[in-house]
């Protein structure tokens, strides 16, 4: 069973190769490829015996090792002309990759030590929501002044006005002519006059207000309506006038 635990450790073919190299105290730049290949294959065999899954990466490496071993066994062609081949060790690429891998394996070891140290140091666990909740009574209107609110209102209304050309087609009722008739009818109905402010309904849009005001001015110009105000800023009363200018 001890064997199995050991088998489990290896993270991949490189990891296993390293283990073999270190176990045999081999110089990585001069790997006895035949011996290492034998041990590597023994290991795969052991894995198989233990029903461990042998991933394809291990098999690819086995093939690579066998191919290198084969090349090493071939007698070196004493062709000094073939300079490119000369001096190229079949193990070279493998060694390069092993060294590259080793670099990070050692960094991993460094990280492992740092992790152990860092794990002994505990920060306070802060429940961000809980802390923020202490300030939950915060003011969603912070920085908003009354003038900002009015400004927003005016802007909305201005946008409504911009849309008016389209609205006018469907809302024929807000023409000055219609409003003139409407005001006359209202004043004729209320012989005792009415308040200026009553002309404007609470839901009146800005355009409606403007149209109403213009209609009223028109009626006054035509001498059909009289506006009276008893004092500055006081209520304005409107009265219908009959044809000859007297109060109806």
């Amino acid at each position, binding site marked *: 069973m001890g064997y199995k635990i050991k088998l489990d450790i290896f993270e991949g073919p490189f990891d296993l190769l390293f283990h073999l190299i270190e176990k045999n105290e081999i110089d990585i730049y001069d790997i006895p490829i035949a011996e290492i290949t034998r041990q590597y294959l023994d290991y795969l065999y052991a894995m198989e015996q233990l029903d461990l899954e042998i991933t394809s990466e291990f098999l690819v490496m086995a093939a690579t090792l066998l191919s290198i071993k084969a090349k090493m066994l071939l007698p070196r062609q004493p062709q000094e002309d073939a300079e490119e081949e000369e001096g190229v060790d079949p193990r070279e690429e493998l060694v390069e990759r092993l060294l590259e891998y080793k670099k990070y394996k050692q960094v991993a070891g460094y990280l492992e030590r740092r992790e152990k140290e860092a794990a002994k140091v*505990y920060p*306070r*666990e802060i429940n*961000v929501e809980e*802390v*923020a909740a*202490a*300030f939950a009574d*915060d*003011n*969603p*209107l*912070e*920085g*908003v002044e*009354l003038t*900002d*609110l*009015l400004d*927003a*209102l*005016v*802007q*909305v*209304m201005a*946008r*409504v006005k911009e*849309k008016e050309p389209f609205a006018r087609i469907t809302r024929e009722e807000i023409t000055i002519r219609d409003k003139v008739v409407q005001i006359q009818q209202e004043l004729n109905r209320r012989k005792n006059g009415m308040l200026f402010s009553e002309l404007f309904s*609470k*839901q009146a*849009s*800005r355009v409606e*207000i*403007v149209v109403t*005001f213009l209609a009223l001015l028109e009626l006054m110009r035509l001498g059909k309506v009289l506006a009276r105000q008893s004092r500055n800023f006081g209520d304005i009363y409107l009265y219908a006038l009959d044809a000859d200018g007297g109060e109806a």
Partner: protein
Amino acid sequence: MLFSEELLGAMECLLFVAHEPLSVKRLAEILELKEAEVEELLDMLSGEYEKSGRGIQLVEVAGGYQVCTRPEFAAYVEKLYKPQTQALSRAALETLAIIAYKQPITRAEVEQIRGVKVDGVINTLMEKGLLEEVGRKEGPGRPILYGTSNKFLQHFGLKSLDELPDPEDFVAEAGDAETAVEEGESR
């Protein structure tokens, strides 16, 4: 206590990481001390935190002890956590303005004015407690009528809605000769 230095540190460490107040009993268990000894250590730690220039304090709460921030620095903590609360969006402000002046008003009526859907915005304003449901409109579907809340009034220091400035003043301003000309030109 001879051993106090190290145990004082251990106790501070425990109080520092604890998620909840630690009872004297619990501290005594972990530190393997008598409860009286723990109390002595607590006194020492508390004294340490009472020195000037400290931002934390030892508080006895819910049958235990807890290290907490000092209340006088709450404003700094708020600044640290504040960026999470966002200012009202333009859409929210406009919707709020319409409702403030036209209340009680239905969602559809607000949409009529703003020209866009306001479901999301109204929900947000409701969540923030700036709007309230104030009734149902008579008629098909009996839609909810919205109005502004007390929180809204309080923020602007208004006694009642009557104190809202008259939007007609703005209309009057718009009626100013200059503005009118400008507007006329912009048509």
